[in-house]
């Protein structure tokens, strides 16, 4: 009865969610934790069901906050009323944020309508919750409690609709391209048949091809699906033809976001009264305003060039004085250049770095060879190509951070500045940092200090200036990058654009001749983008050879002096070998076929059953009998002795030490062989040591072999379905395991960043601690991202909702037989020891 009722409400829910929902902001506002000012205040906006809306505005204005609000992710945790006003009430949530007003999804408060909204975010990697493609898409459906028989049909249909029909459901997500991952995230969102689809910068982290794939997929699914869509994207261009409405946010006098423009794309982008530049908005090329935008960039760059040449030989102070305080924009343009003009004496156009028949790759695989190129002082070289083509490998090899596979990288005498070694790879970290600087894509990988000021000082100390001068220069540098007000702030607390500027400032602090930037404009709004472009130009003009890895076409257009294309096509400057379609043989769940067929939960249970009884008696007989029985049993299921030794050898190395400890310090009795201080070797201690040694083996060997090779997803399913442990914790833990691979890559980047910043020569312990801490911070940041991704798939949305299971974990008769055998082995062993009279609880008193 109750189950049919359940299904009825279930199907009603599903029917309901086919329909697009309308969104209503009623005087809504949010204040982030630890801030005194609201990001958004008194927002009133109505979005009718089925409308497609683009939300624009500069970075940090609160677009993502609005999305989180709609998705019901803000203020939903036992929030309590902090202040009751006449019209509105302020609610403080567990996150420490304050919410005012309300957002309604179809007249239902957003926090109770979480199943109606699906959110897709910027970072493809962060949205992959589980290991396999199909499981990721099904995750949201499970959280909604959709019955299993419906799940896989829906998953396959949605994967087809986003153009991923060829992808095997068992494919591991870690081997996919960014575009594919992002489409899986889209499928995961669509699968839930949401009334509202929220796309938060879905293409910002993708190369042009990946972005195109995602945009096409969205276009395609919107053709035959009725849903309300909200998109945040800095570049409106490619979304224009599906948009009904554009809303632009700007700052009010209080600093909170307010709606500046609202209307159809044609109306908004043709409105001459809107200052798109100051709002950080890119206008699509079909509107006239965009042309003036482009002209302005060109003009600004041009103006800067003129100014640069005028003052080329001048000293800092003169330039500062000649401009005066009133013309701040002109000052901003010139300032970054000044420092470098003073110290560089290298002629522009001098070759600083060149490669001779270079071959690059990771580990032992060569991805490209016969590379010959030159990098000249004062020039900007762009490395472009698809994601994963090998641009980063090339740039890191050039930066002396990766080993080349063949050929040479030669630094010119001007770059070597007195070192005889010409291969950057062989320089010490300190030598490297004052010659070639590398700015990583993720700024957080390279932070090493607690304050912004110290961060810059690291580089200045490397150029061995004295303290006070370094301090003075550090402040000057921060001022030039507009970061001086944050001098004492923790670098991690800056905004995205500020972090990026800080990393460039920190890299320049050690006055390198070559600056390499990895994706410097990734996901930046127009104002920050422009700032970075100016910065790169002025750095190059001061005589630095700049190498930028990017697929940002606008950046290439305005900055490139030379372009190197890395790719597989004929037009590419550097040919890379095509990465073979990875063939994934199904992973073996055990060294033995028999064990692989046992339910994972039972394998764990078996490991315990086989070991725990042995702990009662400490005697060589019970341990020895059990060990022999275990080895025979393993032999019968195809795990022979050599295989056993291969899997458990560390235990064989460790066990003798335990033996020794018991021989020397064990309970004594019988004949004394040696008594010296605490050491007391007796007949009994030797007997007990022998027993301990055998028991260590009898416990360790089966428990290692029984568990070895279990797939984590299968195990989580089994634990949830067999042991009935709470799903939230089981699948939360499972999602954590996916970070193993991600953190591994982070670790490599963090270490290379240390080398590039001149800190790679530290002693090992200090380096380990500093990298370890950076990794820990990184992992916590990633996990908060992961939890948002999970919540966006209705994870933990409704505690009363029973989660369904897409995968069945079966318990068969053979699993019970297996458990009984596991228990029988130690029981037989104990019985034998009792019969022989050697049984002794805990080895006796």
């Amino acid at each position, binding site marked *: 009865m109750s189950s049919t009722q359940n299904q009825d409400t279930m199907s009603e829910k599903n029917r309901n969610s086919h329909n697009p929902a309308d969104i209503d902001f009623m005087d809504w506002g949010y204040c982030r934790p630890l801030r005194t000012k609201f990001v958004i205040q008194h927002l009133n906006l109505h979005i009718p069901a089925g409308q497609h809306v683009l939300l624009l505005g500069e970075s940090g204005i609160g677009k993502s906050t609005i999305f989180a609000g709609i998705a019901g992710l803000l203020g939903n945790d036992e929030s309590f009323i902090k202040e009751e006003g006449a019209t509105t009430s302020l609610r403080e949530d567990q996150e420490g944020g304050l919410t005012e007003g309300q957002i309604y999804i179809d007249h239902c408060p957003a926090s109770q309508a979480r199943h109606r909204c699906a959110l897709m975010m910027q970072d493809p990697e962060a949205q992959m919750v589980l290991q396999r493609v199909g499981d990721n898409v099904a995750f949201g459906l499970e959280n909604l409690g959709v019955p299993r028989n419906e799940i896989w049909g829906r998953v396959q249909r949605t994967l087809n609709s986003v153009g991923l029909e060829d992808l095997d459901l068992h494919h591991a997500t870690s081997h996919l391209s960014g575009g594919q991952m992002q489409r899986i995230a889209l499928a995961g969102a669509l699968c839930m048949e949401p009334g509202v689809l929220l796309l938060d910068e879905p293409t910002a982290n993708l190369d042009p091809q990946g972005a195109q794939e995602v945009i096409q997929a969205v276009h395609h699914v919107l053709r035959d699906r009725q849903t309300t869509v909200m998109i945040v994207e800095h570049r409106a261009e490619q979304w224009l033809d599906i948009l009904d409405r554009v809303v632009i946010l700007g700052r009010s006098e209080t600093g909170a976001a307010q709606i500046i423009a609202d209307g159809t794309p044609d109306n908004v982008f043709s409105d001459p009264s809107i200052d798109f530049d100051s709002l950080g908005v890119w206008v699509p090329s079909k509107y006239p305003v965009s042309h003036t935008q482009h002209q302005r960039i060109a003009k600004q760059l041009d103006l800067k060039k003129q100014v640069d040449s005028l003052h080329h030989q001048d000293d800092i102070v003169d330039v500062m004085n000649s401009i005066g305080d009133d013309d701040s924009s002109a000052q901003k343009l010139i300032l970054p250049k000044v420092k470098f003009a003073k110290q560089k004496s290298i002629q522009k156009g001098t070759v600083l770095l060149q490669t001779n028949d270079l071959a690059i790759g990771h580990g032992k695989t060569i991805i490209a060879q016969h590379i010959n190129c030159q990098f000249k002082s004062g020039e900007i070289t762009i490395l472009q190509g698809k994601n994963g083509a090998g641009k980063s490998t090339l740039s890191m090899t050039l930066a002396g951070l990766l080993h080349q596979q063949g050929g040479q990288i030669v630094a010119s005498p001007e770059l070597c500045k007195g070192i005889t070694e010409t291969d950057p790879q062989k320089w010490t970290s300190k030598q490297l940092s004052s010659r070639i600087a590398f700015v990583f894509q993720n700024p957080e990988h390279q932070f090493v200090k607690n304050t912004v000021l110290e961060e810059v000082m690291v580089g200045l100390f490397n150029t061995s200036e004295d303290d006070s001068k370094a301090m003075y220069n550090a402040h000057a540098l921060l001022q030039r990058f507009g970061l001086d007000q944050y001098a004492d702030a923790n670098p991690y607390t800056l905004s995205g654009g500020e972090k990026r500027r800080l990393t460039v400032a920190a890299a320049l602090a050690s006055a390198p001749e070559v600056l390499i930037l990895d994706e410097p404009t990734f996901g930046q709004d127009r104002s920050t983008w422009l700032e970075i472009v100016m910065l790169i130009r002025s750095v190059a003009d001061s005589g630095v050879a700049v190498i930028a890895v990017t697929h940002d076409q606008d950046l290439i257009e305005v900055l490139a002096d030379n372009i190197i294309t890395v790719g597989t096509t004929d037009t590419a400057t550097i040919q890379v070998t095509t990465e073979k379609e990875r063939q994934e043989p199904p992973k073996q769940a055990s060294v033995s076929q028999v064990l692989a067929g046992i339910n994972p939960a039972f394998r764990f249970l078996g490991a*315990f059953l086989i070991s725990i009884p042995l702990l009662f008696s400490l005697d060589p007989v019970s341990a020895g009998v059990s060990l022999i029985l275990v080895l025979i049993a393993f032999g019968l299921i195809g795990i022979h002795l050599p295989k056993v030794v291969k899997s458990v050898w*560390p235990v064989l190395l460790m066990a003798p030490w335990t033996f020794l400890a018991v021989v020397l310090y064990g309970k004594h009795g019988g004949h004394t062989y040696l008594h010296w201080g*605490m050491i007391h070797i007796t007949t009994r201690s030797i007997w007990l040591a022998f027993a301990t040694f055998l028991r260590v083996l009898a416990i360790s060997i089966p428990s290692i072999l029984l568990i070895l090779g279990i797939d984590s997803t299968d195990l989580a399913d089994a634990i949830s379905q067999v042991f009935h442990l709470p799903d939230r914790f089981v699948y*939360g833990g499972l999602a954590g*395991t996916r970070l193993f691979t991600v953190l591994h890559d982070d670790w490599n980047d963090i270490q290379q960043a240390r080398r590039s910043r001149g800190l790679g020569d530290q002693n090992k312990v200090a380096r380990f601690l500093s990298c370890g801490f950076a990794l820990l911070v990184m992992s916590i940041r990633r996990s908060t991202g992961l939890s948002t991704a999970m919540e966006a798939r209705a994870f933990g949305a409704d505690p009363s909702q029973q989660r369904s299971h897409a995968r069945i974990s079966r318990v068969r008769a053979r699993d019970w037989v297996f458990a009984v055998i596991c228990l029988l082995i130690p029981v037989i062993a104990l019985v034998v020891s009792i019969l022989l009279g050697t049984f002794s609880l805990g080895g006796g008193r």
Partner: protein
Amino acid sequence: MLSLFLCYIQIVTIVRYKKKRYHRYLRWRPVDIAVASVIGVASSIIFWAADFLPFDGLQALIPGLGGLLNGLWLFAGPLAAIIIRKPGAAFYTEFLAAFFETFMGDFWGGVKTLLPGIIQGLGAEIAFCLFFYYVWNIWTTLFSGALSGVFCWLYSFLTDLQAIKLTGPYGLAYLYFTILSGTIVAGLFVWIVYKKIAMTGALDRFESGRQIRDKQSL
């Protein structure tokens, strides 16, 4: 004597916190679960790396000295507890870290990693539980680390070191060294690391992070 003292402290703190009408959230949010899990993952890597240390050698040659290293396998619980501040955080994370360690292929054998994980996690958890999850300061953290050490010691003598007298000189030396290591590595060091992480703003979604950052901005 000790238990009376503990009772006294317990009552005093509870009265104090009740008076302040301190708001205590006990239900886990998804972000709590995610962060605990990831601390578990990160810790398991360190646990695993620590397996390479010459623990058994030290253990055998100089009585109890191996105990000095034990803290390296104890810190996950107190660290997660002090960050997340939810009932069960210490236990869940310590257990999970041990669980992941078995998954990476450890030296001891599945059961012999999981079992101490469970026992040490319980130890770390009890410290906060005794104060009804009201008190999250350096003292409870140190206490948690130390208690976790005691449980770790107890575990050793219930299994591999059954043959050695618990209260003999070796047993006591091992106890002292383990408590010392637990208090320093899983207590003091954890507290420092927690404060440093909080200062980066990574914990702004947690009461624990905002506490530190509030002070910072003052």
